């Protein structure tokens, strides 16, 4: 699965994208965030404020209970500030 990070979530994690193989217990977006937080202090810091983390799967906004597939492109980012 391809993971993309943007803005201060990217800056805190220290990486713009990576390809991961999900452990079997990760089935939805909420579980993905739980798992990512265990991967290090940088992830924990980036995802600490769980309420502000926005998630897009295959470039569409999804909720925390969205089910994940192995070929998905999953992006994590803070609230948008363009315009």
């Amino acid at each position, binding site marked *: 699965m391809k993971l993309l990070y*943007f*803005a201060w979530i990217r800056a805190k994690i220290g990486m713009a994208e990576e390809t991961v193989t999900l452990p079997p217990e990760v089935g939805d977006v909420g579980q993905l965030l739980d798992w990512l937080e265990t991967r290090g202090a940088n992830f924990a810091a980036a995802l600490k404020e769980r309420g502000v983390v926005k998630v*897009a799967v295959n470039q569409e*906004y999804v909720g925390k209970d969205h089910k994940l597939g192995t070929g998905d492109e999953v992006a994590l980012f*803070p609230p*948008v*500030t363009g315009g």
Partner: protein
Amino acid sequence: MITIKVQREDFDIGVELAGLSAGNTQIGGVASFTGLVRDIAAPGSAGSRMTLEHYPGMTEKQLHAIATQATERWPLDACLIIHRYGELAPGDRIVLVATASAHREAALSACAFLIDWLKTKAPFWKLEDDGATQRWVEAKDSDDAAAAKWADTK
């Protein structure tokens, strides 16, 4: 009828707006909103800068979806969104939203809807540098409120 451009380069508003209505003499009005970089330089600093990060692919998709919503909601003849990314200086154009319609009310409302909606949905992030320190611009509650008002009313 819907034109979306996500680009590093500046744009010419006169050329873009003329292009929007070209060849369609049923258009009675063109509304536009242009967002500009404001200067936030710290006192005594060398001047402020801004960097706009975005999510290539999703950006175009979201802008297209927003524009499609606008054309479904109002009788628009044409609809244009140009959004820049990369490094920008104070006074630089960031975004152009423009709508063309036979009816001015439709053009004006759709233009306001598009910029309000874009502010909460289009995956762009502003990194401001006031000449002393860098910080990611925080999303504003007022932007959420501005977008939310379109959910209820037309």
